[in-house]
Every structure is written in structure tokens, then in C-alpha cells.
């Protein structure tokens, strides 16, 4: 197998919003930077974000970043680190102006300012009423962020390695020992099957989430937890993996997202009786309550037999909204309903169900994007993470809508600025001997497994089904234990996976097999962490422990892989000025 070596000061893996924001800032700082993406950059999943970027510009009405911070912390069920949230909400404002200056075509107010709209959990802190904070470009805000950042990366000459698939992270030793540094990555060039070793002073993972562990998900086929799994296998912990967000309004069975922007513009959620059932769960914010509450309410309505026609879906109703709002502000989601369901939202309510959407947990970092490996926040020198694969933690137990975009922008930039300083001062740490050896052995084993019994698609389908059934919105200890057993059975089967394709050029069979390995690791970490946390908080709802338990569980989970086992350690939550209270909406 051929191996090519490269040397760049900074290497970024992933070309979504976080990766490109970082790449642009590193390029502007003059740091030699390579961006690796398993897709063409414009295919990244940031492009599917619809509703908006939360930032307290106050263009429509009074607003303050401190209100945004409080809403985020309350939305997180008090698990977010408050120092990080304050930084995020303050810098969100500047990031939005930065994007505007870079060319992002925001919708505009009559006087020409950036237009903002309401979104779940974002409030005027004095009145408790929804506030217009989400800066948007129709319902394709993410598309415009991705395009704008990619375009400016072209302008600044960022070096892209498209369709390069991450297989390994290179460290000089054990990540938990002092003095260990990150020194590069290994990647498979998908078009040719050639392996590449990238030697770097600093590496940023911006690899996105792992929604494909679930059967019904808004996530792209390519969101398979690559960065999280690769880091985990190298001994780096994963933080708060039990907190996985289900978005309330996925298209029934498909999971394709119908943006919260619809409810921000006034859409209703109706049960089979035609009731706006959110009145029972969040009388003040109704449909604009945070996602964990709305998704849980939907599961409960369905369980109690109030799904539409007794089935496992509910209705999103936009029929009362002006036609112009649908055409101008929600054109894409109107089209999704027409194409995939054959439903015209102007005339009929749209069948929806909660869809797996966002990992609050991930690779632990500090506010400069540095990966930290223990409860004392000790950085692993030279290794950074940002975006959905990272856990700062600004989302705690439940992320507010729009805050994923805020997160990628603020922490993509902060990571880049720290990396730029580091790259100016630091030398290259030496690569390990034969840095590609482990990847090569793994790939050869997959390609030459002539006794293999199971197809990738079969194992993946069973994983997605068991995760959906036993580790989604409503959880119990018994079901989580069954789920963990099943995931481990599937891991055993994975050792006997059989590929049809043994060739080099664009071997999707091999790529999907590697991705399945990553999915299994992410799923195992998620389920084990969920079983371990015996309380309910945010998106993690245990029917056998239905209350939040601050006395024992106001802390972050750190899950470490130790051989075939998982061990847990814990990290305190940073509280600045918002003491935990009961969450009411």
C-alpha cells in the first residue's frame, strides 16, 4: 500500500462550519494549513442548518448577550459550563458581523439591518416571552454560512484535501501522561486508496456528529462520529455522551428536518385530537419550549394513544400562516413536505416525529478549543476540537436551537487563534515510527477477511434499530442494559464483517465499514454513559430516575476506553452567576 507524507503547521479535519471558520482564520494569520474532508467541503452538514444563528444584536427589539447566556444555561438544564456560555454568547455578536462582512446574505429589516426571528427557548429575560434573536437567511442559513466560509477560504488560498477519510490520530505517547503531544493524522485518499500521513504542529478535529447511530435522524449519511471514535481509541475521554438531542419535527419515518423556524414563525404542533398539546407541558412558551421538552411531550402523547390515527406521529400545522411567510421565509421546508410526503403544507398538516439530531457530548475541550483529557482540564498539547464533535461544554444536557451555529463559529475561531499562536512558537514534535502501520493493518484485515460472515449494512441496521428503540428519548436502566449488550454483540459481529469490494478506487464498501466501526464506538460510549447516569436532566430522561439530582449529578461524565471496558470519571460544572433552579417554561 502506497503512503504519501505531508507537513503542515496546522491540519484541520472536517470542512463544515467549525473547520472552515478555523481554516479561514489560520489562513488570514498566515499559518500553513491543510483541510482534510471526506466530502467536498460544500457537502458538509452545516449546509443543512435551516433556522438561524442566535446572537443578541437587538435589531428587532431589546436583547442582551447576558439574556442569551441565561437562556442557554437554563436550556442546558444547568449542565453547561457557564464561563464558556458567557464567552459564546458575547462573541456570537461579533461572529455574525464577521460573516456579514465576509458576504453572508442575511435577510434584512426594512432599514437594512440583519433580520432576526424567534426560536425555541430564546426569551426576553424580563417578561419570559420569546425574543427575536435568530439571524437568518430564509431557511437556508447553514447553506449560506458554509458557502460564505468556503468562498472566502478559496480567496485566501486554503489548501484542501477533498475526499480524504480520517483513520488515525498521531500522538507522541499516552494522552494522559504529561509531555505527550499530538503530531498529526493518517487519512485514506478515497479516490485512489492511497494512505497519507500528515505531520503537524497542531491538529483540529471538526468532524461533526454521529446521528447515524439512530434509525430516524436528520443527520447526513456521512455523520458517523469519525473524530470522536478516533480520539477515543487513542485514550482520550468522551464527555457527556449520554446527552443526545432529538429534534421535535422530523418528517415522519424519514427524519428529514422541518426547521424550528416554522414554529418560530408561528406553526402549531397538534396531536391526533387536534389539540395544541404543548399547553400541558410548557404553557408559556408552548411550541417554542426547548427541544428536550417538546420531543419528550411528543413521545408521551404518542404513548398515551394521542398520536395521529393512533400512530406514532403528530402534526405540524402551518395552514394559518400567511402564504408569503411560507414562500419567503420557509421555502425549503415547504418543498421537503411536498416532495417526500406528497403533503402540501398550505392545505394539510404535516406528519412529524422526533428525529435524532445533535450530540451535546463529544471530545472535551476548554474555551480555546484545546482538547482536555481529565477532570483538571489538562490540555493535550497540539490537539484541538470544535463544533459538534467537541464538548466545551456550552450545551450541557440540551442545546437550544441556533446555538450549534453559534458554537461552530465562536469556537472554530477561538481554536484557530490559539492554534496560530501555538504554531508560531512550537516546533514539530517527532512522528511515531511507522505512523501508518495501525491504519494499514486495520484496512488489510477488513479487505482480506475471507471468512467474514456479516455485511456492513446488516450490522448498521441492527445498531440503528436498537438505539432508536432503547436509547432515544425515554430511557430505563433495563432497556439501556439490553441495548449495551446488543451493541457489544454487534461489535463482536463487526470483527467478522465481510466486504464485497477489495479494490482501491473509491471503495465505498471499505469506507462504510470503517464508519460502522466508528458508529459502534460512539453508540457504546453513549449507552454506557446513559446507563451510568441515574438521574434525568435535559435530553437524558430516565423513567426509573425521573428527577434531576443536583446533589449527586451536577457534574460532567468523562468516559474512557480501557481495553474492552469503559471507565468513568467526573468533572465539576463551572457555575459563575446563574445558580441551578427548577426549569419551567
Amino acid at each position, binding site marked *: 500500500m502506497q503512503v504519501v507524507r505531508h507537513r503542515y503547521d496546522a491540519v484541520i479535519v472536517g470542512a463544515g462550519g467549525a473547520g472552515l471558520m478555523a481554516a479561514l482564520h489560520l489562513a488570514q494569520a498566515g499559518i500553513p494549513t491543510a483541510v482534510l474532508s471526506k466530502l467536498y467541503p460544500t457537502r458538509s*452538514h452545516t449546509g443543512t442548518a435551516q433556522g438561524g444563528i442566535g446572537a443578541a444584536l437587538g435589531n428587532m427589539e431589546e436583547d442582551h448577550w447576558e439574556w442569551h447566556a441565561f437562556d442557554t444555561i437554563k436550556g442546558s438544564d444547568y449542565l453547561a459550563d457557564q464561563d464558556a456560555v458567557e464567552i459564546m454568547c458575547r462573541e456570537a455578536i461579533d461572529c455574525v458581523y464577521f460573516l*456579514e462582512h465576509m*458576504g453572508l446574505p442575511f435577510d434584512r429589516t426594512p432599514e437594512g439591518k440583519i433580520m432576526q426571528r424567534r426560536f425555541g427557548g430564546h426569551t426576553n429575560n424580563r417578561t419570559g416571552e420569546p425574543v427575536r434573536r435568530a439571524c437568518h437567511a430564509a431557511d437556508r442559513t447553514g447553506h449560506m454560512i458554509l458557502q460564505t466560509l468556503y468562498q472566502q477560504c478559496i480567496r485566501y488560498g486554503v489548501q484542501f484535501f477533498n475526499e480524504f477519510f480520517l483513520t488515525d490520530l498521531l500522538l507522541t505517547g499516552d494522552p494522559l501522561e504529561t509531555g505527550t503531544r499530538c503530531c498529526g493524522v493518517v487519512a485514506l485518499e478515497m479516490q485512489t486508496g492511497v494512505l497519507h500521513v500528515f505531520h503537524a504542529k497542531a491538529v483540529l478535529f471538526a468532524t461533526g456528529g454521529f446521528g447515524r447511530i439512530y434509525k430516524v435522524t436528520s443527520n447526513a449519511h456521512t455523520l458517523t462520529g469519525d473524530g470522536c471514535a478516533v480520539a477515543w481509541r487513542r485514550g482520550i475521554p468522551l464527555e457527556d455522551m449520554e446527552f443526545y438531542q432529538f429534534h421535535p419535527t422530523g418528517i415522519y419515518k424519514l427524519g428529514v428536518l422541518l426547521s424550528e423556524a416554522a414554529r418560530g414563525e408561528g406553526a402549531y404542533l397538534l396531536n391526533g385530537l387536534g389539540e395544541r398539546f404543548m399547553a400541558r407541558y410548557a404553557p408559556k412558551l408552548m411550541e417554542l419550549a426547548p427541544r428536550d421538552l417538546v420531543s419528550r411531550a411528543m413521545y408521551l402523547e404518542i404513548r398515551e394513544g394521542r398520536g395521529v390515527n393512533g400512530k406514532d406521529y403528530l402534526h405540524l400545522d402551518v395552514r394559518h400562516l400567511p402564504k408569503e411567510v411560507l414562500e419567503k421565509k420557509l421555502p425549503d421546508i415547504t418543498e421537503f413536505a411536498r*416532495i417526500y410526503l*406528497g403533503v402540501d403544507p398550505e392545505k394539510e398538516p404535516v406528519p412529524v416525529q422526533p428525529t435524532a439530531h445533535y450530540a451535546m457530548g463529544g471530545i472535551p475541550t476548554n474555551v480555546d478549543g484545546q482538547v482536555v483529557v481529565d477532570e483538571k482540564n489538562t490540555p493535550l498539547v497540539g490537539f484541538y476540537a470544535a463544533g459538534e464533535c467537541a464538548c466545551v461544554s456550552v450545551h450541557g444536557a440540551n442545546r437550544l436551537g441556533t446555538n450549534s451555529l453559534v458554537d461552530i463559529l465562536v469556537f472554530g475561531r477561538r481554536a484557530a487563534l490559539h492554534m496560530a499562536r501555538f504554531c508560531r512558537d512550537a516546533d514539530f514534535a517527532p512522528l511515531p515510527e511507522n505512523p501508518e502501520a495501525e491504519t494499514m493493518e486495520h484496512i488489510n484485515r477488513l479487505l482480506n477477511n475471507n471468512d467474514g460472515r456479516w455485511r456492513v*449494512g446488516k450490522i448498521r441496521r441492527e445498531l440503528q434499530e436498537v438505539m432508536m428503540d432503547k436509547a432515544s428519548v425515554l430511557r430505563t436502566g433495563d432497556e439501556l442494559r439490553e441495548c449495551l449488550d446488543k451493541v457489544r454483540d454487534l461489535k463482536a459481529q463487526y470483527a467478522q464483517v465481510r466486504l*464485497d469490494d477489495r*479494490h482501491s478506487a473509491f471503495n465505498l464498501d471499505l469506507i462504510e465499514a470503517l464508519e460502522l466501526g466508528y458508529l459502534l464506538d460512539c453508540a457504546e460510549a453513549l449507552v454506557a454513559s446513559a446507563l451510568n447516569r441515574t438521574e434525568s436532566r435535559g435530553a437524558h430522561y430516565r423513567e426509573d430516575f425521573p428527577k434531576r439530582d443536583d446533589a449527586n449529578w451536577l457534574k460532567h461524565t468523562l468516559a474512557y476506553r480501557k481495553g474492552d471496558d469503559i471507565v468513568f470519571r467526573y468533572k465539576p460544572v463551572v457555575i459563575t452567576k446563574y445558580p441551578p433552579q427548577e426549569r419551567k417554561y
Partner: protein
Amino acid sequence: MEVIVRILRFDPEKDGKPHWQEFRVDAEPNDRVLDLLHIIRDEHDGTLAFRRSCGHGICGSDAMVINGKNRLACKTLVKDLRQPITIEPLRGFRVIKDLVVDMEPFFAKYRRVMPYLINDEPPPEKERYQSPEERERFDDTTKCILCACCTTGCPVFWVNGEFLGPAAFVAAHRFVFDSRDRAAAERLQILAEYGGVFNCHMAFNCVDACPRGINVTKAILELRQAILAGSVSLSPKER
């Protein structure tokens, strides 16, 4: 229901030239063509290669020729197609494997038109102002997802290697008519040269093929008018 799918296969490591292969797939009328491809991969033949990501028409990965027309596999439903369903890679690019083509020449032409906002005036502390009318002026061309359905469906592109193609024109339009941009003249200069907007024959294939419903021909006409006018007017009343 049983669906018959015929796919143009090519593996550079064993095939001298592309060949058709037929699959009989158990599928639902509401399934996407992308679902058919996944069923084939998961249950029939894991060697089939194609690109896909978001699965709902936003990322632009899975453009291919389906029953003779350029479409996104994730936005085309089985019930809307005549059988057997034929699937081929996009035309005009080197085939890497099966339905995967080399997109680099496409992106090279995109980069030619300077597809990024250029404005070196010091920005204000907050946002630059832009009226809703000025914003609306280029709204249609912001929708492009760079899937290449338009360019690879264009008869001029098939015969003229210099032709920048409709997707590059759409990208240029998005910036030429943005009131905040200052490089319209440079872009229009590029578009006025050989391979630019005057080489378009108005076949309208691009409009037909665009999965985002962009009126590509209108954008091309507006670029021509801007070149002929010698300057670009951003006044709302001229819309």
C-alpha cells in the same frame, strides 16, 4: 414492489469500458432513487460506488443521470420514474468509479469567476446595511448547491472545453448583483471573454435540470445585459 434498476458500472481496476448491470430491487413507490442505491449496496452488491451525504437535496453530492436526465438521487422518487430506471454518472467528467466522477474541473471553473465577496473598504463596527430590495436582487442565485446538474446537462459544455458553464455563471451573478461587492467589473470582464456568457446558446437545459429551481437563463441574461451596459446598476427600480 419490484423495481428494475439498470446502472452503468465502471471499475478502473477491472473494466476496460463501462457496462450496464441490472438489479431487481424490492422497494416502495415513495422511496428515493438514493434508497434504491443503498438497498443495492446493502443487499445485492457492496462494490457499487456513488456519492451521497445529506439525503434531502441540500448538499449536492448525488447528482447523476437518471432516466436520461440530470437529477439528485435523493430528490427523485421511484413513483415518478418509468421502469426500468437507468442510472449513469454525470456526463463530461472522467469517471473514477461507477457513479463517481472527477468534479475537480467543475470546481476549477467555479473558482475562475472569483466566487467570493470582494470589498476591501474597512467594514463598519456592526453590519453593512443592505435594503431588502438589494438583498432580493441576487436571492435566486444564492440557492446554488454546486451539484453540477446544470453544467453537465449543457450542450455547449459538452463541446466547448473553455465554456465556464451555468454553475459558474450563477456563482458570478450572486456576487455581481450584491450591493456590498466591489469586483463586479473584474468578474464581468471574465464573463465577457471566450467561454463566458455570450457562448451560451439558450438551450434552457440548465433551468430544466436545476434541482433548486434557479432561473439560470435569467441570471445569464442579466449578466449579459450588465456587460453590454458597461456597468452594473444596483438601483432597485431597475429590477
